[in-house]
Each structure stands twice: as structure tokens, then as C-alpha cells.
């Protein structure tokens, strides 16, 4: 059974790491690259990281630029969050190079529009994988999504996040008409708030996947739509995310773009957050065979413990994803 296999490997890891807890040479566990149509998510929970020795070990992984940015943040909590986000990115990416590229040695640059990407060096006899990544923070969870060859955007938000403004006023100001109608139809304010957050994360994930900055795709210029598959196999629009089998985006300046280039997944993470993933997809000729995006999720405390959480309570698919239950 998976759990036995997992526990066996994990307890070996933990006993190794318990010894090497303060030893900066405790290895990161390498991971196989995501396949086509697969996204990997790694996440860290800041409140669970308290050990100062470990935090100082992480600090050594950052570039001087990242350290400067970190110290500009106001207060310990924000600084720690910044530290953990950079640690998460560096350690996660290192795993996909079979740890040949150490976390410390990764270099990053911004694309023309400001989206961070990896700047690979030149390597003899090794071709770096075409890794794409995207990070999302909240004060209580930081997540990093990784794909190969496909643009990806990830956004996480706390399920309990309170919106200071009136939700419908906010939606009328920033969301598309269709999305406003979707929210307007929900009478229960608590459910409305939850649906708002889900919509927000989906829209954010799309903009982040595009990587061209918020101004290239203002929220009002595209709409998220949901489709359900009826019992006869026909796909129909639906207003209920809970019934939806597919999430699509329609950009108003390019109506033919309906779901052609982008696929979405929505899930609950760690029982505390909504997470949205937007990934580039190949054009499928006839739109048949609605293959969901595959998903693998790990919770990590780099150099200490990694836990594969797909198939557990920590990952609840809402729409558009299929979980890989076996590593």
C-alpha cells in the first residue's frame, strides 16, 4: 500500500535527518520531472518553521539581492516569509536537476515583463530541463508550482480571508459581467465570499501564467467560465463550481481563445487554502478527451522532511485536476 511504502522511505529520511539536523549537508531528495500535462506543487507552512538554526541555514541559500529584499520587509514575520519563499523556490528546483544544481547556485532573471525565470548556466554534457515555476504567498502558506515546457501560474489564498470591501462592489469594479452575475446569484454571504476567493485565485493564476504583468491582462478583460459534463456526455455551462468539470478562460479581445491555450485546476490545500493552477496546454484538435491536468503535491520542510500529500486530506480537488496517487 502506498502509505506503508511512503512511511518506510520517510522514516529512513527522518532518522537520517534527525542526525543531520544541523548539518548543512543533509541532502535534498531529488524528484522525477513532471510529465506533460502535470503540475507539481510544493508548499511550506511558515508557522511550522521555528528553528533558528534551520532558518540560518536557509539564509545561506539566498543571493545577496534576495537577502536585501528580505531585509526591506517590515518586521520579522514578513522577513521570515520572504526567506522561506526563496528557500522553497531554490530547494524545489534543485530537486528537478537531480540535485546537480545546488539551491544556492540557481540564478534568476526577469523576463521582459518582469516574470521571474531561471537563468541556466552552461553545462558540459548536461542539458538543463525546461523548468517553469511560479510562487504564491500567503502569511500562512507558501506554494511553488513546477512544470516542464509549459507556462504555469499558481495562486493561493486563505479560505477564511475576509474582504474589506463589499464583494459585489468589488466584483463590479474589477471582474467581468459574467463573473459578477455568477457571484450575484449566490445568496449566502459566506458562500459568496468563498466563491469570490476561488474566482480571484483563478484569475490571478491566469495572469501569472501569462507572465506579462497585471496591466497586460486587467481582470476585466477576461472571464472565467465553468462547464459541467452532463450525464449524456454533453458539456454545458454551469454556475456552480461544485458541479463543474472544467474551468475555462475567455479573453474578450480574442473570443476564439476560449480554453484553447490554457487549462485550470482548483483545489483546497492543507484544509486552509484555495489554490488555483493555470497551465499552458497544447491545442487539442477536436477538443475531445478532456484530460484533466495531473497533480502531485508535496509538503516540505527543506533538508528536514518532505511529505507526499496527494491522496490525503491535505489535497481536495475542486475542479479540473486528477491526482497522482502513486509517486
Amino acid at each position, binding site marked *: 500500500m502506498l502509505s506503508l511504502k511512503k512511511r518506510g522511505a520517510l522514516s529512513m529520511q527522518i532518522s537520517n535527518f534527525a542526525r543531520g539536523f544541523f548539518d548543512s549537508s543533509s541532502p535534498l531528495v531529488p524528484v522525477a520531472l513532471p510529465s506533460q500535462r502535470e503540475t507539481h506543487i510544493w508548499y511550506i507552512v511558515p508557522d511550522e518553521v521555528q528553528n*533558528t538554526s534551520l532558518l540560518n541555514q536557509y539564509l545561506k541559500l539566498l543571493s545577496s539581492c534576495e537577502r536585501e529584499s528580505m531585509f526591506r520587509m*517590515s518586521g520579522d*514575520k514578513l522577513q521570515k516569509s520572504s526567506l522561506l519563499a526563496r528557500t522553497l523556490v531554490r530547494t524545489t528546483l534543485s530537486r528537478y536537476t537531480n540535485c546537480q544544481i545546488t539551491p544556492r547556485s540557481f540564478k534568476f532573471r526577469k523576463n521582459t515583463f518582469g516574470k521571474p525565470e531561471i537563468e541556466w548556466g552552461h553545462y558540459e554534457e548536461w542539458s538543463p530541463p525546461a523548468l517553469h515555476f511560479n510562487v504564491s504567498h500567503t502569511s500562512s502558506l507558501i506554494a511553488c508550482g513546477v512544470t516542464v515546457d509549459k507556462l504555469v501560474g499558481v495562486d493561493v489564498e486563505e479560505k477564511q480571508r475576509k*474582504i474589506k470591501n463589499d464583494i459585489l462592489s468589488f466584483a463590479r469594479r474589477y471582474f467581468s459581467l459574467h463573473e459578477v452575475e455568477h457571484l450575484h446569484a449566490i445568496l449566502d454571504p459566506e458562500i459568496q465570499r468563498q466563491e469570490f476567493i476561488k474566482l480571484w485565485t483563478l484569475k490571478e493564476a491566469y495572469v501569472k501564467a501569462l507572465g506579462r504583468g497585471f496591466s497586460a491582462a486587467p481582470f476585466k478583460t477576461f472571464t472565467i467560465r465553468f462547464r459541467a459534463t452532463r450525464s449524456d456526455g454533453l458539456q454545458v455551462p454551469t454556475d456552480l463550481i461544485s458541479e463543474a468539470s472544467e474551468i475555462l478562460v475567455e479573453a474578450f479581445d480574442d473570443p476564439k481563445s476560449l480554453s484553447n491555450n490554457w487549462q485550470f485546476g482548483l483545489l483546497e490545500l492543507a484544509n486552509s487554502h484555495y489554490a488555483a493552477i493555470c497551465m499552458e496546454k497544447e491545442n487539442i484538435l477536436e477538443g475531445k478527451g478532456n484530460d484533466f491536468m495531473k497533480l502531485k503535491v508535496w509538503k516540505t520542510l527543506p533538508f528536514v522532511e518532505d511529505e507526499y500529500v496527494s491522496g490525503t486530506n491535505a489535497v481536495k480537488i475542486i475542479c479540473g485536476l486528477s491526482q497522482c496517487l502513486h509517486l
Partner: protein
Amino acid sequence: MAAITGTSISLPAPSRLLQQNQASGMRSVSLSIHRKSFPSLGLQATPLRFCVSCAAKTETVEKVCEIVKKQLALPADSSVTGDSTFTDLGADSLDTVEIVMGLEEEFGITVEEENAQSITTVNDAAELIDKLVEKRGA
């Protein structure tokens, strides 16, 4: 070089000190100079506002700071100044949009999305607000 106190790592942060100095030194602030009437020697040719650049009004900056603190649930005595960047205060994109919306309501203006994107500091927001309020003919 870490000084470890309790659960937080503290390290010298020279860049932060620098920024604070900049706040008091280099950024111009518009002063409203209210004088009691001088002895009538006709020397009062002074302008009422001293502006090196078109900086935001102090009252606007203060109001923006207040709205930012509220949105980010920062304690009332936390340091938020004109030079504070939203991201350094911990604002994510949803916070920033909520802040802009709060500012629109407070000042009776509409901020175009392209302009909203160029707002990174409290001063940026305050300057934009002043411009929009003036255009509106407050």
C-alpha cells in the same frame, strides 16, 4: 553573523537604515507655511507652499497611510510612511486592489488599472490621488 533571539533571526540590516534616512532627507514634502501677519514691511512675498517636486500633500499621504494600515491590519503605531512600498508592508495583489478601491471611495476618484499598476509606494498613491482630485475639480 546572526544574532539569535528567541525564534527570530536578527541580522544587521544596513539597507533598511539607509531607506529610513532617505525618508527624512531627500524626499521633498510640501509645507504649508502659515504665518501670523508680519510687521508690515511688505516682505511677505513668500509662497504658501514650498515644493521642490510635485510631491503629494501631507494630508493625502497621511490618509493613504491610514487606509493601508487598515487594509493590512497593521497596528496603529506601525511605521508606514510615504516611502513605504506596499509589498514591503506585506500587501499581496488582492490587498493592493482593495487598497486602491478604498482610496477611490475615500477620495471620490477612479483609478485606471494601468495607473494602479504603477503605484508601488504610499507616495505614488498620494500623488496620483492629488492629481485625480485636482482634475475632478474638488
